[in-house]
Structures are given as structure tokens and as C-alpha cells.
């Protein structure tokens, strides 16, 4: 494992790999968004073949902090801003960014704008949540939101994730996870409660088993939820000493989870030991659901909390805000104005 740290002169709030052009392809381009600066930017970076630092390809100014970014298609991503807007960018093959669409006041308080906190996408629509507590569904080709589900009480919503094409889970500051069926007009299908009102800061759904959702809490614990049993989380394991800022399943080897937190740690959760012996997880051949370890996260080992956790990068006293992993390379963005890059992250 080799960790490189590149200083980029802005605090990084979001890092995302550009999806590979084919299912079996590799990607060497990622985007970052900054926060809390006088002039925030969205940037495109390329990782060179050699062991060098990533190099900047393109930069675009962005109004407000870039609170979240999600690719909708392979060349289109949405960015949620702290000024309440959601913007759609085209990311073409020459790695040039262009603004395609903008929903300027997707989230509002009475009379002012409310920060957008997280985005999710199922490939043809965008779900956006904000501190106003609303869940807004956007169609990339349509200026007016398809649907706005208003909250009661106005608890800030911090995370959103699609678990099926038409079902999203949102999580708010009170630690409530809500499952919404976007086809029906009714209110939430289910409410899942984290114990003790611990705010849920981020959600991630399992790439193949979408009923499995991992939630990173404000207390630094990772909760695994099985959406088929909404009464209590399957397990809760503590690892961070501060709020978890992001949770990611490895897209190709989902028995690996990565979390980063305000305590400056980036943790690799490796559940592969609890799986039956399988072939070595590699990016290419575990995409098919039949391969590999299907229920590792619902195994008894995980339930007991017996899971291997390793700190991936050297301790940093400042928060790590975002993490993304694709193939064997992990990237992370921190308040130390640095992008971390870890190659061969699964092999050590």
C-alpha cells in the first residue's frame, strides 16, 4: 500500500471517481469539490500511470460549498451546494466540465436558502436532501422538480441513498432513517430508528444487495441495516472517535467498506474473513452477483462486531471529508487541503 498526499490549496469536501467507460473498464479520472473557501471550485484530476501525484485537468468555479456530487451517467454529474442549489455538469471525454442545468433554490428555509446536504441518483433521476428536511426529486431534463416531499418539524436531513429504482432511504439529524416509495403518494413506508437519537451523517447502499444499507453515525459508529427488518439495525460497530463523514462500499468487492470521519481517520472495514473462502476479490469478476461472498455483512461474525478494521492513512488531526474507491485505488479529500491517494488499497 502506498499513500500519496497532494496539497491542492482548498479544503476538499467531496471526491468522486468518474465511472469507468465500460463495466469492466478502469478509470483514472476523478472530480473534487471544495468547501468553506472564498471561491469554491469543482475540479477534474487525472491519475498518471506512473507513481506520480494526480494532476489537475480542469477547474470550474462553484457558488457555495460543494456538499455532495454524484454521477448520474458516465458523463454527467450533479453537485449540491451549500447555497441550496443543485447543478448538473457535463463531464465530457476530454475531461472538460460544462454546466448543463441548474436548480437554484432546490432547498429553502422560510425566506432564505437552505444548504443541500446530499444527493443520490438511480441513473435517471436525482434525489436531493437538505437542511430544510425536504426530499426533492429532480429530473435531469426538467427545470421543475418532479416531486418534493416536505418534512415535518424541519429536522435537517444529512443523507440519501437509492435502495431500488424507485425507493430511497433518507437519514436525518435525529438518526431516523426513512424509506420512501417514490411511486406511491403516501408518506414514508418505514421509519428506522437509530438508538439514542444519534445523527446519521452518511448512508451507503450495498452495490449488489440493495436491501443492505450502511449508516455512519455522529458518534463514530457504523450501523448495518437490513431493510427487510426495520425494527433495529443488524449491527452497530464503533471505530471512529468522531462523526463519520462518509461511508463507501467497494463497488467491485463489497465485502470491503471504507469510512472516513471528522476524527481524521480513514478506516478500511474488511469483512472478507467472515465469508466462505472465495477467490481473491478483484474488480472484474465480482460484479456478477453469483460470484463471491453474498451475505458477509449479515454473517454472525459481523453481528458480533468481529470485523477487521485497519486505518488506511496516517493519522491526521483534521477531518477527512470524503472517500471514494474504484478498482484498487482509493481517494480521499481532507480539511488539510489535501487529496490522499492510496494505490493497491485492498492488498495488504
Amino acid at each position, binding site marked *: 500500500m502506498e499513500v500519496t498526499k497532494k496539497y491542492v*490549496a482548498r479544503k476538499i469536501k467531496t471526491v468522486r471517481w468518474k465511472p469507468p467507460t465500460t463495466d469492466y473498464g478502469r478509470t483514472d479520472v476523478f472530480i473534487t469539490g471544495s468547501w468553506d473557501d472564498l471561491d469554491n471550485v469543482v475540479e477534474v484530476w487525472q491519475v498518471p500511470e506512473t507513481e506520480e501525484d494526480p494532476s489537475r485537468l480542469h477547474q470550474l468555479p462553484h457558488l457555495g460549498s460543494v456538499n455532495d456530487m454524484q454521477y448520474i451517467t458516465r458523463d454527467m454529474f450533479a453537485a449540491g451546494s451549500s447555497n441550496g442549489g443543485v447543478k448538473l455538469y457535463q463531464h465530457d471525454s476530454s475531461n472538460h466540465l460544462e454546466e448543463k442545468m441548474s436548480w437554484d433554490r432546490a432547498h429553502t428555509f422560510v425566506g432564505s436558502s437552505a444548504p443541500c446536504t446530499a444527493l443520490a441518483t438511480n441513473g435517471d433521476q436525482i434525489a436531493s436532501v437538505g437542511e430544510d428536511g425536504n426530499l426533492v426529486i429532480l429530473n435531469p431534463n426538467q427545470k421543475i422538480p418532479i416531486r418534493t416531499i416536505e418534512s415535518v418539524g424541519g*429536522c435537517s436531513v444529512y443523507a440519501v441513498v437509492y435502495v431500488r429504482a424507485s425507493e430511497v432511504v433518507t437519514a436525518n439529524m435525529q438518526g431516523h432513517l426513512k424509506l420512501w416509495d417514490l411511486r406511491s403518494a403516501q408518506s414514508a413506508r418505514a421509519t428506522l430508528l437509530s438508538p439514542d437519537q444519534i445523527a446519521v451523517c452518511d448512508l451507503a447502499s450495498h452495490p449488489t444487495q440493495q436491501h443492505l444499507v450502511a449508516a455512519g453515525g455522529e458518534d463514530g459508529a457504523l450501523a448495518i441495516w437490513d431493510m427487510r427488518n426495520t425494527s433495529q439495525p443488524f449491527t452497530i460497530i464503533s471505530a471512529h472517535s468522531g462523526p463519520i463523514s462518509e461511508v463507501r462500499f467497494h463497488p467491485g468487492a463489497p465485502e470491503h467498506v471504507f469510512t472516513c470521519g471528522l476524527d481524521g481517520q480513514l478506516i478500511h472495514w474488511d469483512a472478507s474473513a467472515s465469508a466462505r473462502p472465495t477467490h481473491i476479490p478483484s474488480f472484474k469478476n465480482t460484479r456478477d452477483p453469483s460470484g463471491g461472498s453474498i451475505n458477509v455483512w449479515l454473517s454472525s461474525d459481523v453481528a458480533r462486531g468481529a470485523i477487521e478494521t485497519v486505518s488506511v492513512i496516517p493519522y491526521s488531526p483534521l*477531518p477527512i471529508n470524503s472517500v471514494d474507491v474504484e478498482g484498487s485505488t482509493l481517494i480521499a479529500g481532507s480539511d488539510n487541503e489535501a487529496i490522499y491517494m492510496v494505490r493497491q488499497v485492498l492488498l495488504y
Partner: protein
Amino acid sequence: MSAFSKNTSRTWSIQDPVITNRMHGIIGGVSSLLVFPHKDHYKDDREYPSAVEGKIKLYQVESFSWLWSRQARKLINEAMGTFISLQDAVKEVEPDDYKSVLVKKCREYRSMIQACVEDITMCRECEGDQEELTASGQLLYKMELILSLIEILFIDKKPGGMILGQLLMWIRSHFTQCIEKKNEVMESDHPHQHSAYWEAVYGSVLQGRMEDARHMLSNHPFADTDPFLSIDELLRKMPFYQVYGGVSVAEFTVRWQHWQSECERRLQEGHYSTCHQLQTVCKILCGDQKTINNLIDLMDTWYHLMVSTLLFTCPTVKLFRLHSAAQDAIACVGGEQSTTPLDHVLLAAMEADILQVIKECQQVLDNTWFTAHVTDLLCHTMGQTTDQKFLPELRESLLLDYVSVLVSHCSLWQIGILYLDHLGPSGIAMSQTVLQRLPLTDDSRAHKIIQMASDRNFDSVVVGVCRVMGRRALSQGRLGSAIWWGVRSRDAAFTSHLAHQILQKYVVEGRFESSQLLDDLGPAMLLSDTLTFLGKYREFHMMYQDGNFRDAAVLLVSLISSKLAPEYFWPVLLLDALPLLKSEEPVISAEQTYELMYCLHNLHNHASKRGKQSSLENEATCSAFLEKEIDLRLALSNNLARAIIHEGSVDN
């Protein structure tokens, strides 16, 4: 020019004949000033034509620090890591390794400065304000030059105090012209005919790069002639002192004197009379002051001259003699008049005057980064050896200055806080003050501030931030969020206030807006009485909805008798009891009925007592209640009768 303050709440007025009207200024923040011109208010507006008047603009003058430029941001962030690891390392390290830790950290600082210089050179090729980049580059170069000299003179002291070897390396790495020239010359078709050939040879010799000089000479067509062979031998045999070379100073001195007398002999015997350039080389080797001084154009600065002179006159020079050598060199290049502020820093360093070095640094570099970090390094170095009492205080104050620059920037406050952890009590105090005053733009920033504050056990800051967030949420009408922040801050008064608001809203509207929130309060409920009541009341609703009437009744009565409920809510509770009283199966016992009757009685008394004084609003609710009172009394007595019979029959 006269400037004086008018005593109008910190608005300063500047009167100057040059400014047609007065100027005013207000201090707008730690580092900003609002300036605007004076405008008289005349009763008759027509006196001035409107075109002249125009609008009065407010100008915001902000102090700009080089540290805020993008080029410096990397330095700030990287230096933070080194600074913190240095503070931790000096606490833990064994005394033997102390020096090596400091040297290592000093080199880390130097390498990050060099990396910044490289970045700037790359930037210059593609984009940006060239002038600014050049200025940044020069600034960084100066910082690195000074820091490496400080490393040699103060931190990485070699046993025996022999410093020339290090000084030579310092000169070599900062004056690379001779190497560039050499490469240029050697790449040409006929090196010896190149105009800079001999300059490159002299330059190499003056920096003690004997191998380079020999390489160049061997490319001369006459390299096989006697004068060339002779000078080659001298260059090859020149002894260099190495601290760990296994040769004592005395033995080295003997060898060196022997070598130099050999040089002088060959010079006098006219070995080089055929080639005056070789003669110059040999004169340099002999330490001929006049020859070396004449080559000043190849050396640019007095410190290069000084090191080159020492190399051929006094290779075993010690630190305490460096100062006089520096003075001599300065005299050669034009004396004190021609010195720059940078020269003063270097001179002060050679005088081993730490305080002066720091003072001069503050003048030559317009940023607090360098002085703060250098003082920190020096403080740790000197803390081991001498009793320089002023250093710890100076370190603290300079680092505080640096932090105040960081925290006045909107994005660098986190780094500032990390520095403050290592600055003793005043650092902690400042840290608290800073965290309290950071603007709370959104939740994620608030969470980060809370995390930093709770890591440092600043409970009051955590509570303060939560309160601000809670009150803001309330003003935005987000009760749920407000309660969450209130519970978080453990602010009983605030949460009670919120709970009252929810209850009052319920009295008016008859439904809970944020029922979801109240259902799942959990242990947070216990924070305040009103919140507890609210939670329990909500629980009653749930039981009632589920058809669990008996438990609901018990809870309701206990809520009424416990007096947790605020008085304005009693009517609601009693009316809630009505359907339970009327239920087919008696669910409220005789005992409980008495409680309810007592409560109703009290309420009736209160209501009639206040009858006339109360406001219109209250009157309306009261009268509405009084209408139902008869109904309620009837139900109570019916239920009491039923309950007594029921209880009596069960008992039997």
C-alpha cells in the same frame, strides 16, 4: 496630515486639506476597515447639483497577507503537520536524538518551501499573474536561504564548531549559476572557445567544485601540457576537512598548509606563466584576496565571497570568527550602505544573535509564517543548551500572531486551532474565543466546530454553538431541529420553551406538527419537565390510538395529578379524559376520578378568579372550556358511580 478620532462610536474621521471633504473610517473586523467620504447634509438640496453629489460609497479596506494566496496555502497546510509532529517529538525523544529530530524537522520545512518554489515555476509556465508569482518565488527563495543558514549555524552544529563544509554546501545549493554555465559551455561544440569557459572554471573553483573544474580543464586542447597537468594535480590534491573523516584538525591543518605552500611554490616558479587564466586559478588556490575579490561578479553576494575566501584562507574557521569574516566581505562589496534587509538577517545569524535574526526576519519577510516557525525551532534548540529566557515567550507571541492571521481567513481556522493547542494557557484561551466566534454557516460547519471544541473539552463552546443553531432553527420555524439542538446543548430552559411552543400550538390547532419527532425522544425527554410531559402526552396519544384505553387512562391521570403539565394545558387534558370517562367499560377507577374532579375544581377556581383580568384570547379558550365543563362534570359523576359499583362487585 492630521487624523483624530471623533467620539462617535468608533467612527474615525480624517481631516486633511488634500481631501476636499473629510473621510471616515470604521473598524470592520480583525483585519478590515470601512472607509467612506464625508457628506454634509444640507437642508436645501438644490444648493448642490445632483451630478456632482453622486452616491456615497463604502469602501472595505482589508489587510492582505501573502499567506492567503494559493501558493502559500500548501505551505501553511504542510507546515502544520511538521509543526505538530515537532511539538510531540520533542516531548518524547531521548536527549541524544534531540538534535537530529530538530534537524529533520528543519529540513522538512525547507523541502516544503522548495516544493512551493517548484510549484510556482510550474504555474508560471501556464497561468497567473506573472509579477505576483515572481514576487512569491523570491520570497520563498529568501526564506529557504535564511532557514538553511539558521540550520547550519544554530541547529545542526557539528562537533568542534567546524562550519565551512556546511557553508560551502549552502552556497553551492543556492548559487547554481556556475553549474548552469558549465553545462552550457560543455554542450557547445568547442567548449574552450566559449566566452564563459573560464568564468565557469573560476566559478567552480570558488565553490570548491574541483571535480567540475578538472573536468572542464581536461576538455581544453592543451590539457596534456605541463601547466594544465600541474594545476590538475593541485586541484585533485586539495584537502577538504570532514568532520567524521578520521583526520584531526591539527593534522588537516598541516596537510592543508603543505598543499597551499606547494601552490605558492608553483606560482612563484612560473609554472603558469604561459597561461594567465591558469595563473588566476592558482592564485585563487593560494587564497590571494585581491584575485578572489576581483571575481566578485561571479559570486554576486558578499556571503558567497566570504565562503569562497574562507575556503582558501582559513578552512578551519569556527563560528565565533565568522562575524569578522562577514564584515570583511561586506566591506569588499561596498560596505554597509549597499546592504539589503536580507543581508542584515544573514549577518545577524553569523553574529549568533538570535533575537536580532528574528527581528530582522520580521522586516524582510512580510509574513508571520517564517518568523513563527523559525522561532519555534530556535526555542526548542536553545531550550536544551542556553538560558535564553525570552525565547519561550517570544515563540508564543509570534505563533499567536501567526494564528491570528490564519483564523481571520474564512477557511484556515481549523489549522489555527491546531497550533493553539501547543501554545499554553493563552493558546487555550484564544482557541475558545475563536471557536465561539466562528460564523455558523451550516450544519456541517457547526458539527466540525463542535467536534473540535469537544476534543478539547470546551463544554461551554459546544453548548454555545448548539444554542445558536437551536435558536436559528426556531427562528426559521424548524421546531424539530431546534429541539434536537436544544437537547444536544442540554439547555433545559430552551427545550422547555420549545416544548411550550409545541403545546400551545396544539391547544390552538389540535394536532402535533412534529409528532414523529416527539414519538422518539428517548432519554432526551428527561432534559426538562415540559419536554418530559410532552413526550409522555404523545405516548398517551399513541396508546389511545392503539385502543389501549386502560393504560392510556392511567397515564393520563398520572399526567394530570403529577402537575407536570403547564396550566394552560389542563383543559386539554381534562377534555381528553372525556371519551375515556364515557367509554362503555369503565377504564378510570374511582380513585382516579377523584383526582380528575380535584383537578377540575382547581381549574374552575383559577378560571373564575382570573375571569375578568385575562386577555381576550384566554377568555375565548376559557369560555369554550366552561361550556364543556358541565358535560365533563356529568361524565365524571357517572363514571364515579359506575366505578364504585364495578370496583365493589369485583372485590366481592
